[in-house]
């Protein structure tokens, strides 16, 4: 669980932050809201916070004019509307993000590199004007097969060739979800097993992690599954 303190007095920005943090596929995040630095101080005393994100202007004053010391012990980020904000302070932020706060910013904060992250997309369905019923059916199949894969790899001892067969069946699902990096990783892992008859457990662990991300994504992004 990652804990983020967000100092912001605008209701819309607060709602946006909640949405972004609850729709991340990888980690669960708890967001603590503070409308000013006084409230922030109380939250920091009572909780173990991993990151602070603050709006550049709180109560119409630049955050540097508030209690700057409050930020010195935490990695913190500033959100601004300005393209070239001038921020002079003793403890500079890790980074300044231009509003609105989006997933990409969150991944940067959580230090996901481009290579680690493989975005899940449902645009395949739009491309072929898929009916909601069929889309739901297909996502449901993916969900079941992914759960089955996790169960089999967690609870049974698979021969390398059995694992290769299971991996083979994952490709179409990652393709449908637009996850090209994972798709390639699955193919490479399957091919390596077929050629060497050995399992690359590191690759398998990454694939399982991505599957868990998809399952979390599907839970957050579908209503009836």
């Amino acid at each position: 669980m990652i804990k983020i303190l967000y100092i912001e007095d605008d209701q819309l920005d607060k709602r946006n932050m909640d949405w972004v943090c609850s729709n991340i596929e990888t980690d669960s995040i708890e967001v603590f809201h503070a409308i000013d630095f006084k409230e922030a101080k109380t939250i920091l005393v009572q909780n173990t916070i991993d990151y602070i994100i603050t709006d550049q202007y709180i109560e119409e004053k630049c955050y540097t004019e508030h209690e700057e010391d409050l930020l010195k012990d935490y990695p913190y980020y500033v959100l601004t509307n300005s393209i070239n904000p001038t921020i002079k302070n003793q403890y500079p932020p890790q980074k300044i993000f231009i509003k609105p706060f989006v997933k990409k910013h969150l991944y940067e904060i959580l230090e996901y590199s481009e290579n680690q992250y493989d975005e899940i997309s449902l645009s395949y369905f739009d491309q072929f004007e898929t009916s909601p019923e069929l889309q739901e059916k297909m996502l449901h199949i993916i969900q079941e097969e992914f759960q089955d894969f996790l169960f089999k790899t967690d609870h049974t001892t698979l021969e390398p060739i059995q694992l290769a067969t299971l991996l083979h069946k994952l490709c179409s699902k990652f393709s449908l979800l637009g996850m090209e990096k994972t798709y390639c990783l699955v193919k490479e892992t399957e091919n390596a097993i077929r050629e060497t008859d050995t399992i690359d457990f590191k690759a398998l662990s990454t694939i399982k992690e991505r599957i868990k991300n998809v399952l979390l994504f599907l839970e957050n992004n579908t209503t009836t599954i």
Partner: protein
Amino acid sequence: MTSTTPYILYLEDDEIEVLKFRLAFSSLQSTYGLEACQNGEDGLLFLSQNKHHLPSFILLDLNMPIMNGFEFLEKVKSSATYKKIPIIIFSSSNNQSDIIFSYDLQVAGYFVKPFNPDDYKKVIEKINRYWEECKL
């Protein structure tokens, strides 16, 4: 599909692949109908039940349970009734030995399933158009 409509038989055990194919195929306005079977054994059964209205061509996945694509190919190519049906491999495998072995078994083409939906649709479109214009 009426009993005279030309059609494609798609052998594929992965339900998502079949649904993906149907989605892309339905956007083509093809003159072909589409039938699907889950493995080689089902495919052979289907052919035996439709001897008087065989598919115009067969799209074949290789990695299937019960009877895989190669086993199906061997059976079909050794049958006087079915051996003239063009068979096109549609597989996620780009393994060179699979490709060579498929042509050894007289396939009419080998296509690797593309990742990207645009490319996927293009491949299906090409296959469809080629066989629509072929004299069979």
